[in-house]
């Protein structure tokens, strides 16, 4: 089957809309992706025909909703090749909550003063702040692996930082700023050799490339549905069954218990031990057609499409005088989040002008303030791609840079050159 982006676009109703009288050019996919008709229809169908609370009711609707919810769990588990999908997939609100779950439920039990938590200099705040909090609570130390000038993790530094004191290595598989794809399989080997466990932040990788938890041999993997065509409000935590079984619960409440007295409780089996309270039933169920959609395209094809588009974008941006592109320049080493600056034009001004041209990008620090400081900038602009983006949308971005230049009177390039 050939990958036909024009056919794909027809499945996404929002791509038909105009913004400020111009066709929408949506290049903010690292923040969230658009939804295909099948996902939207599934949500509506659920609320029109199946809505009920799950796992408790003994009526038809409750049984149907429970079956659909658990079917989503299995589909997600199979998508990342989990060995025990029915027990190793936990639904949360988002990637951030998934990481907080591990930091608390695993961290409080396993970290003590002197232990080390290793992450990288390119982590999103969601894979940084939870560890800062747990380090404060347990006395563990934070260590981060430094980057080289091309935006890759320094291998020598990884070897130096991951050692016998390391208890957990928490690393992003694909940077939301630099696009860099990190060698998580190799890092997992290093960590396991040191006796540590590994959490992979897959928020940017799982939507964009084949990810196989058994091949990587990670202990935890966190990602979000809304960045992969699915609804907002659904995060996933994959954890190896043996580890999850011995962890204490994260949140307490209904759904996660077996027997309760006023003094104490016994907890439900996996995965329900970690899903306290009524979950986001509708959105979990509507996550399934998002995965179906990606599987029909094939994750290898998705990756190939984005790799080509990313290379096209990097090359086009680098041809514009005054543009600085951050991160690896070779698309085979990176994903489709392309971060750049245009002279000394502030990204917010750039984003505002682009918006008037119908082009949606992200501007700011991308929830990675430490990395922004490493790069020596306060903010950047970021264009990021997905299954439905085309090269003519990259062209629209480049044209819109021209509009910014007209408004700011070439100030950006001239001033940057004069500095």
């Amino acid at each position, binding site marked *: 089957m050939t990958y036909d982006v024009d056919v794909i676009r027809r499945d996404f109703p929002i791509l038909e809309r105009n913004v400020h009288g111009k066709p929408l050019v949506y290049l903010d996919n690292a923040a969230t992706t658009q939804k295909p008709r099948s996902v939207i229809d599934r949500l509506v169908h659920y609320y029109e025909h199946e809505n009920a609370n799950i796992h408790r009711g003994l009526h038809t609707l409750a049984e149907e909703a429970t079956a659909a919810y658990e079917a989503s769990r299995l589909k997600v588990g199979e998508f990342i090749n989990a060995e025990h999908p029915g027990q190793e997939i936990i639904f949360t609100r988002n990637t951030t909550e998934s990481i907080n779950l591990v930091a608390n439920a695993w961290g409080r039990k396993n970290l003590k003063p002197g232990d080390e938590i290793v992450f990288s200099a390119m982590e999103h705040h969601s894979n940084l702040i939870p560890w800062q909090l747990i380090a404060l609570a347990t006395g563990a130390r934070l260590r981060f692996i430094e980057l080289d000038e091309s935006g890759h993790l320094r291998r020598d530094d990884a070897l130096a930082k991951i050692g016998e004191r390391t208890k957990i290595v928490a690393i992003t598989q694909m940077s939301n700023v630099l696009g860099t794809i990190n060698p998580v399989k190799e890092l997992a080997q290093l960590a396991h050799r040191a006796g540590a466990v590994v959490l992979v932040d897959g928020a940017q990788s799982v939507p964009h490339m084949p990810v196989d938890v058994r091949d990587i041999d990670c202990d935890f993997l966190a990602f979000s549905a809304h960045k992969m065509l699915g609804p907002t409000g659904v995060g996933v935590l994959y954890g190896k069954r043996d580890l999850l079984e011995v962890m204490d619960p994260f949140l307490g409440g209904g759904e996660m218990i077996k027997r309760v007295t006023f003094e104490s409780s016994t907890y439900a089996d996996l995965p329900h031990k970690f899903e306290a309270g009524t979950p986001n039933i509708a959105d979990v169920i509507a996550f399934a057609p998002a995965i179906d959609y990606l599987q029909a395209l094939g994750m290898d094809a998705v990756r190939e499409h984005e790799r080509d588009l990313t290379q096209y974008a990097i090359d086009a941006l680098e041809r514009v005088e005054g543009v600085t592109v951050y991160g690896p320049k070779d698309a085979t080493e990176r994903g489709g989040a392309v971060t750049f600056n245009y002279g000394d034009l*502030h990204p917010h001004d750039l984003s505002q002008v682009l918006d008037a041209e119908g082009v949606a990008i992200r501007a700011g620090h991308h929830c990675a303030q430490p990395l922004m400081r490493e790069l020596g900038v*306060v903010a950047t602009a970021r264009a990021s791609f997905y299954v439905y983006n085309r090269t003519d949308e990259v062209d629209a971005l480049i044209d819109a840079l021209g509009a910014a230049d007209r408004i700011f009177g070439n100030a950006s390039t001239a001033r940057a050159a004069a500095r």
Partner: protein
Amino acid sequence: MPARPEPLLDELYRELILDHYKNPRHRGSLPAADVTAEGYNPVCGDEVTMQLDFDGDRLADLAIVGRGCSISQASGSMMSELVAGKSIGEIRRLSDEFKQMLTDDGAPVPKDLGDLEALQGVAKFAVRVKCATLAWHTLEDGIQQLERGGGSVAREEA
């Protein structure tokens, strides 16, 4: 849904704003200033540092340095022209007037804001209001610091 008029980019990036952005007024430092006030918006990375020299309750002179978006930097430059030489009471009144103009789109534009009137278009772009008010909040902090006896003060916009 009621039709909302399209906010025009031209209303935001008026020529006067771009002029202040490219040629900021009162740029530099005052070595003998009574107060140094820093403002920072971590969300955008907009920064402004101003040194304030008072003569009694009158702002005798000020100097500003900063980096950030065109709105934040132009607003600081325009403000510096307006407030230099004015009394603290007058500055506070102008500050309230300016903030009112930015948050109440459609209200009559005050006549005594000088070049700052050019920023009225910001009211149509809600996310940019904080850019325009950063310099003013920083100046208010500086005045408060003077009343506490001078020195330095820093703020982070929430």
